[in-house]
């Protein structure tokens, strides 16, 4: 394990950015967000970024390819280019786990090369949480906020940052940082993990269990009468899917520039009626079906297709952002009776 004094973070960031473009969470007027680090930019103290970290691998919009059109002819232009190496610093345990959820979609055969390109070039430096808050429930999905995954894991105490490599990629990065960090034992980190574990146990959602849900439970929940009441006030605004680190539905749209066509991929949302609308009909007629789809996907369909892994990481963003205060926790409580 390596350590560096918190007042030397600027030196650390400078050293990391030698290994690849560095992104850190910084405080802005719009809350905490990832920005490219440059000298003078300091690490945000917020628990988490307003938007999730999924943008790094699955950006909100991206150009997939171009087309040249001439008369009756079409030329397909492959616009993909090799991504530069980059480092994401300070990713929380929940968001690190979300990468695994996304991987199982985008890296499943046939592999999405746009996603894989970015994933291959990224080093994830995660950050253990010290002050989890009342909207956090990552523990429900087996995530330990005090002990995240990642290539390098960081633990922040009052005056020190401790760094531990978890993967080969991470070890390589730490080697490059040898001149700005020093060797350390794990006493302070172990001590801190204990304190955080106690804090986590006291969170209001600490007892929330997902046990009732999971693989193969479609028939148990699909026709539940509770969906009506739960979905009644849903505005279909899609905010939950926008801030969600694991929501990965997308649309493909063309834009005619006047001298060619650019094909884009954009985030889409199962909360929108257009999402499934066909000229031949609409399988999800009302907001009830759309609302049900989102939660059934996270709690039942995705686990069914992915060895029981849930497609929620308990980051709590939807709890904070939903304009009508409806969220997955309420759905789980209502349907699963799942407060132990």
């Amino acid at each position, binding site marked *: 394990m390596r350590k560096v004094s918190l007042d030397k973070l600027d030196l650390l960031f400078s050293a990391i950015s030698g290994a690849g473009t560095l992104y850190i969470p910084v405080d802005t007027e719009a809350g905490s967000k990832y920005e490219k680090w440059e000298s003078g930019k300091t690490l945000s103290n917020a628990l988490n970024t307003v938007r999730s970290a999924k943008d790094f691998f699955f950006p909100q919009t991206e150009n997939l390819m171009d087309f040249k059109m001439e008369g009756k002819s079409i030329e397909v232009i492959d616009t993909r280019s090799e991504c530069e190496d980059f480092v994401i610093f300070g990713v929380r345990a929940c968001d690190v786990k979300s990468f695994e959820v996304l991987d199982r979609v985008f890296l499943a055969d046939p592999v999405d090369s746009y996603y894989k390109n970015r994933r291959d070039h990224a080093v994830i430096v995660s950050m253990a949480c010290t002050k989890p808050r009342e909207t956090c429930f990552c523990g429900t999905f087996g995530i330990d906020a005090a002990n995240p995954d990642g290539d390098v894991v960081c633990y922040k105490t009052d005056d020190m940052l401790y760094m531990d490599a978890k993967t080969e990629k991470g070890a390589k990065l730490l080697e490059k940082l040898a001149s700005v960090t020093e060797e350390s034992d794990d006493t302070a980190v172990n001590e801190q993990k204990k304190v955080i574990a106690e804090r986590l146990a006291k969170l209001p959602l600490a007892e929330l269990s997902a046990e009732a849900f999971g693989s193969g439970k479609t028939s148990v929940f699909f026709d539940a009468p509770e969906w009506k009441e739960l979905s009644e006030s849903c505005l279909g605004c899609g905010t939950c899917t926008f801030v969600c680190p694991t929501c990965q539905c997308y649309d493909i749209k063309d834009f*005619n520039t006047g001298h060619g*066509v650019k094909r884009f991929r954009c985030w889409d949302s199962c909360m929108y009626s257009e999402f499934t609308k066909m000229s031949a009909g609409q399988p999800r007629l009302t907001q009830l079906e759309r609302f049900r789809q989102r939660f059934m996907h996270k709690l039942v369909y995705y686990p069914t297709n992915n060895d029981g892994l849930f497609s929620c990481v308990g980051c709590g963003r939807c709890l904070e952002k939903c304009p009508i205060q409806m969220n997955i926790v309420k759905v789980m409580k209502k349907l699963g009776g799942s407060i132990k």
Partner: protein
Amino acid sequence: MIDMKEPLIPVVGVVTDIRIDTPDVKTFRVVTPDGKKAFEHKPGQCAMLSIPGVGEAMFSITSSPTNTEFMEFSIKKCGCVTEWLHSMEVGQQITIRGPYGNAFPVDTEFAGHDMLFIAGGIGLAPLRSVINYCRHYRDRYGKIDIVYGSRSMQDLVDYQEIINEWAKDTGVNVHLTIDREQPEWDGHVGFVPNYVKELGFSTDKIAILCGPPIMIKFTLAGLQELGFDKTQVYTTMELRMKCGIGKCGRCNIGSKYVCKDGPVFRCDQIDELPDEY
């Protein structure tokens, strides 16, 4: 440039022939610019066709894999992309990617069986691929019955091929029907589900259904009345799709994605899916 193959990047296809089938259905013949098939497929599989700037949409491949020269798509005019396709002239280039989805189990479950094909309207498009596959490998299958109905005589897709080729094959029986009487029509009049019951097939067959949802529902019920089990009946489904590879998230019925787990389902498997299609 990235060296890796990307499933979302299509290849260019050239439309070399356009056949007007019905007032709203045209069949397009597609090859690559060097005159080959864009890719090989199995009966029941689909492809994404696109006009850049207009959109991309999923269509069943109506030609049989045994056709070594070209692929065909029978397409009904009903939305933005299909309207554009209908306005095309021969020589127009489009883009094509695929094949997508599973296929009818023509070489396993279907082998050695009598086959009963039942289609309504444009529902013949995905079945034509299987029918012509079975006709090509005629000795691998028993008797073939084809029940096909449409609104009117003019709305029967592939009418010339049905009359001039299918109906003339030995061991192939074609039963056509139209919804309402027409002066120039001396064949059967009535809806497909009723016609199937009237014809009263023996239950030692594999049945394949494709057509509007309401037709599938009533025909399946009719087949069950005749004694068919749902495990003998196959159908092919359609939902909105963008990627075709189980990632964009919109064509699922429960945990199954129609684009990759389907489009072909056995009717007992459909019973296991939630009622949302």
